[in-house]
């Protein structure tokens, strides 16, 4: 019993973790909350859906096409919506991000209509049974992919030249510029990677919960945001662990406390985290310079 609940929590949490990675990556480098991240996931899902179901392409065509498309979308969004606001207040950028989120939702509504569609899973690994409990193949892939992405991102940021530029930009944008780092290019790259991750998250989410609609990205986006805050926003391993923990908490509260209150409990965690440990599990303490 408990094992079944735990495992279904892990499969839900793995999806949150994957989404939270993109959130936390963009926040860590560009220091902005990209509330449109959840909707880029939806875009990724729709592109994969169009390529695989409507046009009949293979799974790999759908996956690669979707990643490429979302990467481009991320770059365009950053250029059009966020770059002109580089020196504006944080609030202005935040509100623009919400605007982009609504824009993407309504664009999808126009193109694909309001009916949600059935997404054919792109993962062909069968269900695995452990005693009475079962784990869908999608979950294993999701967890594997999340771990690979965490390792990949850590290596990229800590070992590569562009990664070093990202770290520099995240620490002090002005100083980085003085040192000859192209800040705009670095932030663009961050958005490109973040949106590519969103495409992967979108495909895996829609494979596990086979339905796609214009609002598919909204709620998972918010839950993943909670996961990112819980794990310490800006911290890549934090996002991974935060996501899985939030998924488990959500499912266990559904099972043992009340299936009606599970969302409320998840949001209470966000409030408690912000009150007790605002930097989250793995967050760095920011020094305010005077």
């Amino acid at each position, binding site marked *: 019993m408990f094992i079944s609940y735990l495992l*279904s929590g892990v499969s839900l949490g793995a999806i949150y973790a994957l989404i939270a990675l993109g959130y936390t990556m963009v926040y860590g480098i560009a220091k902005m909350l990209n509330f449109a991240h959840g909707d880029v996931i939806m875009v990724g899902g729709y592109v994969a859906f169009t390529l695989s179901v409507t046009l009949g392409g293979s799974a790999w065509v759908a996956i690669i096409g979707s990643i490429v498309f979302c990467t481009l979308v991320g770059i365009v969004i950053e250029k059009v919506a966020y770059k002109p606001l580089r020196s504006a207040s944080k609030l202005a950028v935040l509100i623009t991000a919400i605007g982009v989120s609504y824009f993407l939702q309504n664009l999808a509504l126009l193109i694909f209509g309001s009916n949600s569609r059935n997404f054919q899973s792109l993962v062909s690994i069968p269900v695995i049974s452990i005693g009475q409990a079962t784990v869908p193949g999608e979950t294993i892939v999701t967890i594997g992919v999340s771990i690979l992405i965490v390792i990949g991102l850590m290596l990229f940021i800590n070992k590569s030249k562009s990664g070093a530029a990202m770290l520099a930009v995240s620490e002090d944008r002005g100083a980085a510029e003085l040192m000859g780092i192209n800040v705009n290019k670095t932030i663009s790259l961050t958005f490109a990677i973040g949106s590519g991750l969103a495409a992967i998250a979108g495909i895996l989410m829609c494979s596990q919960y086979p339905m796609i609609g214009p609002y598919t990205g*909204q709620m998972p986006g918010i839950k993943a945001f909670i996961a990112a805050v819980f794990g310490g926003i800006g911290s890549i391993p934090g996002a991974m662990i935060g996501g899985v923990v939030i998924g488990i908490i959500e499912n266990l509260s559904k099972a043992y406390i009340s299936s009606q209150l599970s969302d409320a409990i998840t949001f209470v965690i966000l409030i408690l985290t912000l009150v007790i440990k605002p930097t989250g599990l793995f967050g760095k303490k920011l020094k305010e310079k005077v």
Partner: protein
Amino acid sequence: MKNLKRIIAMLMAATLMVAAFSACGDSQETTTAAQGDESNRAKTAEGGTFLIGGIGPLTGPAAVYGIAVQRGAQIAIDEINAAGGVNGMTLALDFQDDEHDAEKAVNAYNTIKDNGAKVLLGTVTSTPCEAVVEKTYEDGMFQLTPSGSSVNAICHENAFRICFSDPSQGTAAAQYIKENLGYTKVAVIYDNSDVYSSGIYEKFVAEAQVQGIEIVSAQAFSGADNKDFNTQLIAINNAQPEIVFLPIYYQAAALILQQSSKAGYNFKFFGCDGLDGIIGQLEGDAALAEGVMLLTPFVSDDPAENVQSFVQAYQAAYGEIPNQFAADAYDGVYTIKAALEQAQITDASADVREIGTALSEAILQITVEGVTGTMKWTEDGECAKTPKGMVISNGVYTAITQ
């Protein structure tokens, strides 16, 4: 000088804004007029154009219902106009978006009133309907909601509905499960953020007690955003029910069927009218819907002649199979037509309150043979018709046979 420039700039901006807004207004009016023109071509009207106002979500997460209602109503209006209109009047539809939001619905109501609507076909969803019914009552406008199923959606004497009320569905479902199917151990999954779903659930629980049905597990989820039902399914599997009752909409039900089959459970499912559309939603996985039972007034595969002609017209116009909301709206327009004939209203420019009073009396005297069944109305605004017990077998709805 600088100030002057600023003032001029602001004035120009203001003019532009006004121009933009009036342009919007104009274009809307022309579309309504254009629709009128089209129908005029079918037959020149003597009594003028009788404008039916419609309100429902055309955008937002509930848009699928509003769009279905708008389309279903339009098909009925086109048919009626092609056949010569009603009492010499042609019908036209002015449908406004409410985004499934009570406040926006009241704004939309003011818009259709300003545009000259004489009756209201709406609103589509229950929550906005509860707000708008107060306004139509103040103005004395006749209101017929195709699908607003909560009790308070039609709490005044000028308001009627086509669909079943939530309580009647809950009660009917409990009776059907016990009396026709003979099950006594039932599990329920319902949406606690939705008046439709929780309304049915509450009445189901009450009637289950009367019928001696044991509810072995009641699981909730909140909102259409919810996609993970594994926990609820595990809990239900442990409770070992004979049947699982799903008083929810088909999108969530499709996910439940998929996750249940993936986890290897073998439940029997039973639902209400919200499940109609599940075969289309499952697309490639349609086999999962095999054996799902539901109580519904409308099924698109019903061989009855009027149902098939409606389904074909809808499919030809919009390229998809109509759902129950479209059917309710279609019947709604024909009900308005029948009531207009009964009340012998021939002047499309008559006073809203006058028309409202006449129609509210007339609807009690008529019987309408619609695609959702044979309908008669009672003074509390409810529509009396019998739900049909259907089971999905080989991908089509067939009547349950014992």
